[in-house]
């Protein structure tokens, strides 16, 4: 009822009835092709420079980055980071096969639980689906192996990202997502830096409701 009333009012304003079939087909074609609009030149770089741009942008947005040469070095990087920040070594980790394949046992001090984050978790380790150099943004599509709560609930968020998954512009990340996941997952978060608020006197303070710290462990696998 309301639906028809609203659509009728819109059509009255547009001075036409329902869209003619040929025009509707054209619009459906546009949806299927989802053409790219203007993409800023800043990320149109050779891959190594995209990686550098990504790191610069994460740091500009108050995140931190540790670059490691292989997945085997991730546990050391995580343990060192937690120690340097005086943080506990208990963490909750995404049950993702890439993270599970990391030799965590070599750092027995780290106590790891796999699953979604709970309110009591202080440190979360998440699997980054892609990184976007343009603004230093991480892409986290939800999945059983990549729970959304890991992105927002813990005080410290650590993301593991392979350099081969780093692209220039958002549009390239959407293409990866469409090609590999075949459609929109329930939730896709684009995260650029740690949580913040400027609601008090329009002055920036880090650590609002989401993580106070965002640390990216960047695994060099691009060769």
């Amino acid at each position, binding site marked *: 009822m309301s639906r028809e009333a609203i659509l009728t009012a819109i059509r009255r304003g*547009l001075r036409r009835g329902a869209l003619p079939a040929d025009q509707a087909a054209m*619009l459906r074609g*546009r949806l299927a092709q989802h053409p790219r609009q203007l993409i800023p030149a800043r990320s149109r770089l050779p891959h190594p420079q995209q990686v550098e741009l990504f790191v610069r942008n994460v740091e500009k947005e108050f995140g931190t980055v540790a670059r490691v040469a292989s997945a085997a070095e991730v546990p050391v990087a995580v343990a060192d980071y937690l120690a340097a920040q005086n943080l506990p070594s208990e963490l909750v980790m995404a049950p993702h096969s890439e993270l599970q394949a990391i030799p965590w046992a070599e750092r027995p001090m780290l106590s790891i639980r796999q699953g979604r984050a709970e309110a009591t978790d202080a440190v979360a380790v998440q699997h980054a689906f892609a990184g976007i150099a343009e603004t230093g943004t991480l892409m986290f599509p939800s999945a059983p192996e990549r*729970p959304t709560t890991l992105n927002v609930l813990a005080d410290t968020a650590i993301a593991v990202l392979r350099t081969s998954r780093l692209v220039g512009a958002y549009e390239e990340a959407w293409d990866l997502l469409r090609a590999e996941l075949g459609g*929109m*997952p329930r939730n896709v978060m684009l995260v650029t*830096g740690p949580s913040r608020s400027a609601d008090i006197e329009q002055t920036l303070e880090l*650590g*609002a*409701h989401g993580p106070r710290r965002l640390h990216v462990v960047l695994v060099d696998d691009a060769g």
Partner: protein
Amino acid sequence: MLANGEAVHAGSGRPRGIAPLAGRGVAGTFREAAIRGKVGATGDRMHVPTSAAFKQNAHAAIDDPGLQKALARSGPSFIARRAAAAAALPEFEELRNTARDIKNHTLAHLDFYLETYAANVEKAGGTVHWCADAEAAREAVLKICQAAGARTVTKGKSMISEEIAVNDHLEKHGITPVETDLGEYIIQLRHELPSHIIAPAFHLNLEDWEEAFRKSHTDLPADRVFAERRDILTEARTKLRARFLAADVGITGANFLIAETGTSVIVTNEGNGDLTQTLPRVHIVLASIEKVVPTLEDCTSLLRVLARSATGQDMSVYTTFSTGPRRDADLDGPAEYHVVLVDNGRSAMIGTEFQDMLRCIRCAACMNHCPVYGAVGGHAYGWVYPGPMGSVLTPALIGVDQAGLLPNASTFCGKCESVCPVKIPLPGLMRHWREREFERHLTPATQRRNLGLWAWFARRPSLYRMATRAAAFALGVAGRKRGRFARMPFAGGWTQGRDLPAPEGDTFFARYAQAQRDGTLR
């Protein structure tokens, strides 16, 4: 604090000011009367607009030292941050054209994209509730909450939620809404309306936060110290964390709806929106119909101008795309996903000169750059949407008879249009409202008479020049000593706030003609 601050949750009845006119039909198709009936006519604890009392509100605002302190502090920083972000992206100006074109394309096919969007939401397992007006939207939200057996509801920041005043409606039915955006949270504690569309607590100072927190968080030690902003933030985080975990339903707004995928998009910096829509069993998205865009790519282009125009960030911290409820084997996320899709006056703007206003992506750049907003703040505007975008949108949503003063409260400096990421011709639209107001005889009689007098002269150029020369000469003589007038008969309102410079004896036209004759023009 402001006179209108108290009126926000005032009792029933029509707002004070001009009574609604039966209104003879105005040229064009815009159906103001119908819209007016939908907003403000129902519920006894609505956000009663005080836009008709703009002048009194503005006076109170200028005399409010706390507000003036806040405006002086925060105004310039927004302008500088946007300028820096725009300068750092060479394509920014071109992206504004792209953004405008995407929105125009969508609005020209709004029926198609809404139907496509709704079909895709349902394909993903969500439910769309089409609501023609505020009352229907409030009812839809309440029904979903009641069906979920909800006692508390957490909320992300949403202007449409303010527009339809859903909080009052939930409270009346025994459900506690909890605003979780830090700015909205203190606004709720203080029973105020937001004074800015992206910085709800723009008008407050640190001491106001401390006062509200001490008054509301009585379970905490009374002798605790708030030394800096961080202490406020930490206390709010702790308080609200418990609310997030206990809530049965989470309500968010939407910055965009994507037709291609049936997705709602929210943009936040705090992360409160994500906790709101991830933790409770039910997620309700409140969105107005003009939020829809065709594809992920189109949305991406709009995102490139949104944060830069709003806060001067390249990208907000959390940009989140939600599509339907929790999938099989997911470890988290809501079991139910509802979209309450609200018209509330928008469809009546389609096809009129005000259609351009529906491009608005609520970045607040217009108010951040507005000298009027900078002088009186947001509450003076008397309803949900302040600043230039409010001066155009508010008359469309609550009626020009009530909000006619807003499009008049403009210096027409054009700054708002020059920074708008979707290039809405805001000053031009304000002029259209003035015309509507004039056509409907809503303009005060003195003003009409004077305008009529001016028009009579303006249509007779030689007479006009003679009269203005005489006036300029007389004023020039009278003001020769001081060079300015502190008082002026018939212009007391104008000279109350500033001096009128005395003319130097002749009009521009006359001096131009003289220079032409002397051959001194270059």
